[in-house]
């Protein structure tokens, strides 16, 4: 049974797709145009009651929230493809910790930045310079902590690539492509090196090739 991923064009969906590729799991995609309101159709809302992207269907089984989806497949196919949790049980909590950091510290200010710098006209909002500046400062502080962390660890959770690193790719991509904030990565030596390592993984290159970003 092939996993169906809804809305491959969207950033959070790419979090799921890159994971499926790392775990060598076959999948197919279903386009959902949120700008045309296709995510609010009754059929789609049955899969994802908040009308957000992505959702997945695996036979009769459906899931939403990309971080829940990636944890499920990383666990289900633990012995296939790339190990995404760390090789031993003792290391397991660290990828969880840094995945939460991504979700609650990295993602929110970056998401706001992306909305105001790239998607403002599509969403019909006026870019607010004060909001952009505030969120740049917030994100900068987070990246300073990453810089410190990555000066002594090859990856966020330790010396292994994990779901925590992978989870930064899809929205982090915009910092260097469209938001005009490349300096936030490049001015930080260890963050920059880490970004180059994770974004050059064949899985991520495949995602960009198959499902280019909308903008």
């Amino acid at each position: 049974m092939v996993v169906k991923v809804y809305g491959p064009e969207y950033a959070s969906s790419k979090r799921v797709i890159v994971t499926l590729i790392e775990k060598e799991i076959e999948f197919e995609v279903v386009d959902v145009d949120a700008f045309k309101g296709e995510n609010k159709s009754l059929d789609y809302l049955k899969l994802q009651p908040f009308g957000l992207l992505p959702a997945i269907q695996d036979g009769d089984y459906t899931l939403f929230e990309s971080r829940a989806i990636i944890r499920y497949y990383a666990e289900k196919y633990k012995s296939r493809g790339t190990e995404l949790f760390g090789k031993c049980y003792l290391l397991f909590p660290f990828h969880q910790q840094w995945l939460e950091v991504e979700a609650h510290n990295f993602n929110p200010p970056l998401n706001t930045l992306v909305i105001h710098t790239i998607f403002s006209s599509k969403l019909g909002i006026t870019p607010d310079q004060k909001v952009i500046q505030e969120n740049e400062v917030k994100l900068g502080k987070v990246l300073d902590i990453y810089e410190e962390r990555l000066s002594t660890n090859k990856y966020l959770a330790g010396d292994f690539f994990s779901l925590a690193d992978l989870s930064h790719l899809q929205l982090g991509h915009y910092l260097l492509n469209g938001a005009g904030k490349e300096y936030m990565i490049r001015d930080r030596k260890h963050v920059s090196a880490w970004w180059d390592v994770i974004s050059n993984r064949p899985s991520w290159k495949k995602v960009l090739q198959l499902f280019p970003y909308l903008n």
Partner: protein
Amino acid sequence: MAIKVHGYPFSGATQRVLATLAEKELEYEFVNIDLRTGQQKTEAFLKLNPFRQVPVLEDGDLTLFESRAITQYLAHTYADKGTPLITSDPKKMAILSVWTEVEGQRFDPQASKLGYEIVIKPMLGQTTDEAIVAQLEGKLAEVLDVYEARLAQSKYLGGDSFTLADLHHLPVINYLMGSKIKSLFDERPHVSAWCADILGRPSWKKVVALMKH
């Protein structure tokens, strides 16, 4: 003692961890980090959590931050103690995981900002921004409509029994139930029943009692 929690009793994130420890019937030492006097900014605390946020858990050699990573660690490591808060069935665990993500990504951003405006700001002698409150109320109402539909077909958010998916909500729901937007919860019968159920758990009452001391 093997388990130490560095936290602030009035921090929702700290309460999330304390509720989990109570459910798992685990003993721990509590180290108070007074956020009002900036104790989270000391060099000593920075070594525990570079993000300067409470709580931090120490369990033997392990140091962990991010409350939802800590609760998952405790639920997993002490699976055989106290209340089961996760499940070993992968498909059921993924559904549980969906709803812990919903709490973290859909519920908490709106609800904790509302709590800040309505409960915290007045406590600090600041003025509530009613325009922001109106906006956030609208967004939270939409989220709670989804919860109402979910709880109409599932006793708890993650499935048939109380799990982390429900527990993670306790601190913020507790704050909001004492405020004017309690009505958002009361108006939705399944949400209302679920709130009463989870807030009535003995483990949660223990956490509330800690706040009172």
